[in-house]
């Protein structure tokens, strides 16, 4: 009884807090000062036609570096624990059901297009919606399709790890170059800003997004590959 009344009191207190929060909220009628600065000065300062990319890669580039690092740590931990509890035995995969005709044929047709779409998305990240993360995820889904169509195929983890570490190091190096050649860490004005809206514009953003895309794609592919290889048969 006492516990129930305590719960009720806590619930009532939360209701009061939530009500005051909701009651005090009113929709913003103008952009906040930071958002206004990005919206008005973004095109001239960064030169990216896609303003979201300008914020993600340049204004908030440090956050993106943090996100990529978190993804890297996650992939490393998943790989570590899966290989820790998984004993290599060759007969595990020989009773696997083959994929259906439709899936294997469709995957052969679709995988090249998916890879090209992923590369397109991160190369054009400063012009059209999308960017490194989205393109990397699309590339990883191409590899998922490959693994679904042919479960026995093994991804080469050495190449994946190499692509990942090279692009991660390149990302940080370009960021550090920004300190010496431009305004600060991850500043994109190392290279010329170019014409607004062209493929080779917005300074170093296309280069950065290529590395982010490769890094995210290889990390997600790595996770999927580890999960695939440690599956057991009944």
């Amino acid at each position, binding site marked *: 009884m006492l516990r129930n009344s305590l719960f009720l009191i806590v619930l009532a207190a939360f209701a009061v807090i939530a009500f005051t929060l909701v009651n005090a909220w009113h929709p913003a009628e103008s952009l906040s000062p930071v958002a206004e600065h990005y919206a008005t000065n973004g095109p001239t300062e960064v030169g990216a036609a*896609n303003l*979201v990319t300008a914020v993600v890669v340049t204004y908030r580039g440090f956050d993106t570096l943090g996100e990529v690092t978190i993804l890297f740590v996650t992939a490393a931990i998943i790989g570590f624990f899966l290989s820790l509890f998984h004993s290599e035995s060759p007969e595990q995969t020989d009773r696997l059901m083959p994929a259906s005709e439709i899936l294997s044929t469709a995957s052969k047709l679709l995988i090249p297009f998916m890879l090209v779409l992923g590369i397109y*998305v991160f190369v054009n990240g400063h012009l059209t*919606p*999308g*960017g490194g*993360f*989205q393109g990397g*995820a*699309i590339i*990883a*889904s191409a590899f*998922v399709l490959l693994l*679904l169509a042919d479960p026995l195929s093994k991804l080469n983890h050495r190449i994946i790890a190499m692509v990942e570490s090279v692009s991660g190091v390149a990302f940080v190096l370009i960021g550090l170059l920004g300190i010496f050649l431009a305004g600060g860490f991850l500043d994109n004005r190392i290279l010329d800003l170019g014409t607004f809206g062209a493929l080779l514009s917005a300074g170093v953003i296309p280069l950065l997004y290529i590395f982010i895309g490769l890094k995210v794609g290889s990390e*997600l592919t790595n*996770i*999927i590959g580890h*999960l*695939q290889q*440690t*599956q*057991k048969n*009944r």
Partner: protein
Amino acid sequence: MIYLIISIVLGIIILIMAFIALYHRNLKVAILSAGVVSLFASILYLLLDAPDVALTEAAIGSGLTTIIFFYVLNKIQRNDAEK
């Protein structure tokens, strides 16, 4: 106006699918409906003029996460069967 109606319908579908994902007894159905939640959420983001978020949600939320859930479900069931 038409966008408003589509958004409301999408929101209702998302709520139903989220309910199924939480309470369905068959875990495979639950995982699939969680993927459908992400798929419709990405369409909703597109209608709300956030194509960047929609791309991420479609690729990671409904694609990769569903596959990873299925792999993990497979592992868990095998481990249960062994015991």
